[in-house]
């Protein structure tokens, strides 16, 4: 059995494409087997909605009268610093940026009530944002300071550009120490008090396309409630990671850089988040369609939580001190049962990624495709795969050249 993206798109245009979610395909394959399922299903949709720190947005503010060169100066959005090292009025607001006067962890654990992720959420929601920018003044850009409200509908461009999203798999965080720790994996209680994980598992985009067969540069996706594209492989992309017999990474593996027009996204799918004692971030909704071009591709989309394994890592010592070694592996089915066994102890589990929202994303994308509103794209170039030899390197500190 084989199929092309052009053929699938023709069926989508006619409203005849058979689209199911990566959750629904599991039962379809159980009932009909791989061969029949691959003949009948054209597209499998995936979804994930989790905190993704390497997210941010480029804004082009438009030129004021007289002109100001914010580039090389400073810019703040609702007191949150934006990066201004570009041309005159292009700035970038990153998800984890904090106001200069935020107390951070001075009194530990800090609250981190507001930051870049919240600015992005409010921008998308159409709220006015206070811009304060300072330039140094030039002959062509004489103005040195501007304070004004801006709104996403008035500025020229607002482009979400996340340099790392949609991690293929992730650690399960536990705490072996005797005090509570406050991490990007949430509040982790002492003596193995809880275990937090962060993946949609069987619905997660890259766990359904473990070898990046259909997801590549230029793939059109659901991003933040609107349409976006895969721009590149994400930072820390690690295709060479340990994999199971089914090809699915057993550690954090591949990642994606994604891009899209922020103006057509929705605040429901781009949420500012506050991690106690850690910082702020942005929760991003991503859904990727997988065209069923072969039985092999379909087999991968039918992966279940029982067949996807994640490493258990101690975040009190091993993670911060870069110590290798894990405390074991668990399947997402075990994680979702509510408790896992670690060092002979029953540990209650919790998720930071929202499974119900991941389902909603996969369903939304399915509806768009079924109604003919969303066509699939051929990747312009593949993501680096296992053959690339790319690995995840630590930083080696040195002083001498």
């Amino acid at each position: 059995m084989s199929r092309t993206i052009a053929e699938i798109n023709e069926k989508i245009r006619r409203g005849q494409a058979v689209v199911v979610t990566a959750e629904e395909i599991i039962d379809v394959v159980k009932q009909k087997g791989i061969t029949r399922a691959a003949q009948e299903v054209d597209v499998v949709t995936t979804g994930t909605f989790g905190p993704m720190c390497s997210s941010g947005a480029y804004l082009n503010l438009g030129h004021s009268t007289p002109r100001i060169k914010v580039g090389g100066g400073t810019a703040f959005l609702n007191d949150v610093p934006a990066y201004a090292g570009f041309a005159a009025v292009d700035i970038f607001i990153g998800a984890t940026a904090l106001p200069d006067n935020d107390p951070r962890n001075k009194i530990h654990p800090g609250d981190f009530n507001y930051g870049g992720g919240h600015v992005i959420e409010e921008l998308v929601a159409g709220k006015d944002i206070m811009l304060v920018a300072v330039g140094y003044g030039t002959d062509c850009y004489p103005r040195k300071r501007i304070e004004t409200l801006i709104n996403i509908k008035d500025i020229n461009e607002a482009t979400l550009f996340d340099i790392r999203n949609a991690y293929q798999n992730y650690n399960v965080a536990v705490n072996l120490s005797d005090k509570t720790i406050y991490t990007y994996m949430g509040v982790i209680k002492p003596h193995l008090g809880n275990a937090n994980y962060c993946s949609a598992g069987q619905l997660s985009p890259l766990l359904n396309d473990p070898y990046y067969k259909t997801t590549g540069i230029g793939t059109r996706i659901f991003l933040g409630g609107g349409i976006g594209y895969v721009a590149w492989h994400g930072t820390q992309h690690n295709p060479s990671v340990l994999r199971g017999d089914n090809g699915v990474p057993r550690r954090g593996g591949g990642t994606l850089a994604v891009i899209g027009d922020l103006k057509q996204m929705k605040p429901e799918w781009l949420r500012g988040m506050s991690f106690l004692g850690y910082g702020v971030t942005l929760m991003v909704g991503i859904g990727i369609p997988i065209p069923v071009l072969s039985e092999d591709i379909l087999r991968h989309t039918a992966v279940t939580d029982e067949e996807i394994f994640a490493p258990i890592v101690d975040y009190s010592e091993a993670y911060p001190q870069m110590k290798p070694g894990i405390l074991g592996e668990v399947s997402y089915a075990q994680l979702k049962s509510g408790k896992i066994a670690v060092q002979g102890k029953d540990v209650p589990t919790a998720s930071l990624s929202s499974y119900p929202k991941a389902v909603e994303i996969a369903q939304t994308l399915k509806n768009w495709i079924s109604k003919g509103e969303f066509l699939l794209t051929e990747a312009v170039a593949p993501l680096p795969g296992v053959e690339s030899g790319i690995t995840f390197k630590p930083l080696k500190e040195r002083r001498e050249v």
Partner: protein
Amino acid sequence: MVISRRVVLHFPRALVDQPVIYRLVKDYNLMFNILKASVTPQEEGLLVLELSGTQENYDKGVQYLAEVGVETQPLSRDMYRNEERCTHCGACITICPTGAFTLEPRTRWVRFLDEKCIVCGLCIKSCPARAMEMAI
């Protein structure tokens, strides 16, 4: 008939140094279980209690509290979830000491059972979306 109610008591400054709860036990034969207490000298005090006893004694006890100037309100009103902000991730589930958050097994929606909540407030800042709000 024995009843059991969870209530929030607000003590005005003048009453903070008086044995009000002792009177509930001694005069009205009510059992109490302290769920949360916050008493600051020279300021208002706050006590979250589970009170058990006969309906008659419970009503009389609450009337006594009102007479001495302690304001009471039922507990369930105090903690609520902002449904628009909740992403149903589930980070709250292992944080709550009384198991007031549970997962609907099939859909994995997070349910908040306010009858189990003791208004300790641990979930408020542990929730990344800051969806839990207290109205005390």
